[in-house]
């Protein structure tokens, strides 16, 4: 067979059969490369932490007019160990987490604590080893329970690291809230390798979005949006990472996000030019 394509290719004999096979092979190869790469990157994105901001009021109430307790001595620091767990929001959060419509590929995030534990040991909490750390993957894994507590940003969580390490009194306890955490998140409450340990900031961002999200949420599948905040607090870009299945509803979520800006300026010591946030919208049947 002969093709007359143009003067330049006019005399070219094109072996159609081999070319066709080659084309199919190329397509398959490309598909493997591209989807393989995308799967690889999804795997990479399991690193971020799901910070579930529990309602702060439940934990602390309004401190207005609260008289200051006498300054507790440092030795008394481990005393608040029996924190009333029922009052704290983290239990709810822990139960909630699996219920969210997180994409399946984000589930491997639960493996994170296991991976990070050696790092914590390196910081010098040898007692952690006594915990059933590589525990059998039975359903409510102890690691899983820890995740929200660490992530929960309420100050109530701050004075209660004691339950996390009841043996702390044996060794000299680091003062509550001491600088045992680090930017790489090796501290007892950061638990993870989050690059962004500023709980107040996430709280404020969540509050601003929540204000605009009130009254717009509808039941059913909820979208996940990824957006960036610039150093001056302005919204950089927002994209739907996981659609709710309802394009119009996705747009409502994006609009709520846009209406919520500008956000607080990024903390001085956070050096990146933007903060990238994965945002899981939710529907609260009580709060609308």
């Amino acid at each position, binding site marked *: 067979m002969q093709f007359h394509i143009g003067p330049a290719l006019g005399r070219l004999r094109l072996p159609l059969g081999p070319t066709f096979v080659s084309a199919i092979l190329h397509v398959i190869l490309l598909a493997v490369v591209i989807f393989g790469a995308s799967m690889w990157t999804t795997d990479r994105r399991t690193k*971020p932490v799901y910070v579930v901001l529990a309602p702060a009021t439940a934990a602390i109430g309004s401190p207005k007019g609260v008289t*200051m307790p006498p300054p507790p001595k440092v030795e008394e620091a481990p005393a608040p160990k029996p924190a009333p767990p029922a009052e704290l929001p983290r239990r709810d959060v822990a139960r909630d987490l699996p219920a*969210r419509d997180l994409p399946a590929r984000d589930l491997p995030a639960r493996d994170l604590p296991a991976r990070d534990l050696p790092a914590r040991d390196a910081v010098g909490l040898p007692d952690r080893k006594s915990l059933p750390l590589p525990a059998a993957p039975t359903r409510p894994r102890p690691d899983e329970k820890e995740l929200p507590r660490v992530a929960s940003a309420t100050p109530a969580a701050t004075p209660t690291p004691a339950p996390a390490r009841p043996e702390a009194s044996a060794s000299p306890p680091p003062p509550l809230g001491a600088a045992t955490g680090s930017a790489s998140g090796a501290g007892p409450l950061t638990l993870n390798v989050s690059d962004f340990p*500023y709980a107040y900031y996430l709280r*404020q961002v969540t509050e601003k979005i929540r204000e605009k999200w009130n009254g717009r949420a509808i039941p059913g599948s909820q979208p996940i949006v990824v957006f960036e905040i610039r150093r001056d607090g302005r919204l950089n870009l927002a994209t739907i990472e996981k659609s709710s299945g309802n394009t119009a509803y996705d747009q409502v979520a994006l609009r709520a996000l846009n209406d919520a*800006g500008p956000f607080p300026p990024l903390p001085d010591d956070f050096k990146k030019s933007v903060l*990238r946030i994965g945002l899981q919208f939710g529907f609260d049947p009580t709060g609308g």
Partner: protein
Amino acid sequence: MRRIALVMLLTGFMVFTAVGLWAPTSPVRAQAPPDVYINVTGGGSTKLNIALPDFAVVNGSDAGGLSRLLPTVAGNDLTLSGLFSVVAGTDRIPANNPEALQQAWINFAAAGAHAGAHGLLTIRGDRVEAEVRLYDLTSPNFRLIASRKFEAAAPQPPTSGADWRRRLAHKIADEIVLQFTGEKGVADTKISYVVGPSGAKEIVVADYDGVGTSPVTRNGSINLSPVWSPDARSIAFTSFMNGYPDLFRLFPFEPRRGTQTLSSFHGINSSPSWSPDGQFLALTLSKDGNPEIYILTVATGALQRLTRHASIDTEPSWSPTGQQIAFVSDRAGQPRIFVMDRDGSNVRQLTNGGFHTQPRWSPKGDTIVYTQREGTHNLWAISPGGTNARSLTTGQGDNQGAAWAPDGRHLAFQSNRSGRWQVYIMLLDGTSTTQITSGAAESTSPSWSPRLP
């Protein structure tokens, strides 16, 4: 060679096809993973609890009590912002003592504080340098959020009324609001209002919280409806100082600069409203018979008539885009709120069924506040599209004359709920109402300045 070229061509084509097929299922985006994930569901919003202990004096002597005054005034600003609760507690944290700082934050965090502000003062005579460090008390090691320096000096010669130390505190509060919300606070602003019995009304200027009153007119006549210009340097007002209701402009921060006449046409010259760029003034003139709305070019005095109607058109208020003007007209029988384009075209009625006056367009553009007569007067709000009409005050005497704060979240207004006309400020949702004037004289007709330069 040609064969190779053709294969490359085909390969290129396939790459494009493959990318095209792949892209819609997984939108092209920056591949960096998010730094953090958060969850947002509905629910009531909560205030941020902030600890604001007395400032530490690093250098110099604090004869004037600044270390207490600054956090007290700034703490009141944060409370008035409606965004913060200030956590009580007065232990002074010494400078350069990390252990004491740590212990203080532990105590404040235990008392429910989400954030702490530690002030460090360097005082040299009448010059003060204040460094304010903000800490996140919800993170395990009380991370430093930001550190900001402020400088202030006593004015030479000393001026009456305006207190530079309170202004320093206001600036600190505004910066704290910025750091936690992304938008500056409105503490470093002024409110002007009218004081006096009928027959002798003078205009005064005070801090937005009502402290530090100083008179800006002293003509013994009747001075009405002050309105701040967008650059916060001048105030337009109506005065009878020449016997007729003419429109003037004064410069409250430039004592040597005299009052300037803006318009003195025959009849009424009233209801000034600045365009957002400060170049024009919408106003009401009755020089052609009944009151109509005009636009005055401030620099040249050129006039442009906007309304042409046999009924009364008055009280214009610019939208923040400068493209539209809300006003009052009784062309529908009773006074109602209308909106028109800047050239007077496209007039449409915004409110129905009531007696509505004093429209004021929010600096954010999304709300128009007005006064409704319902036995007494009350403040209402409505969207510029005419939806979501809602009452802001109710059952508390007579409330009128709203004025927006530059953040579009606060309003000043006059109320006689205490038995005498006084000026109040409140949040747009009608909460956190605070009386800012007091005394035997009537205080009316507030105007909230833009943020001071």
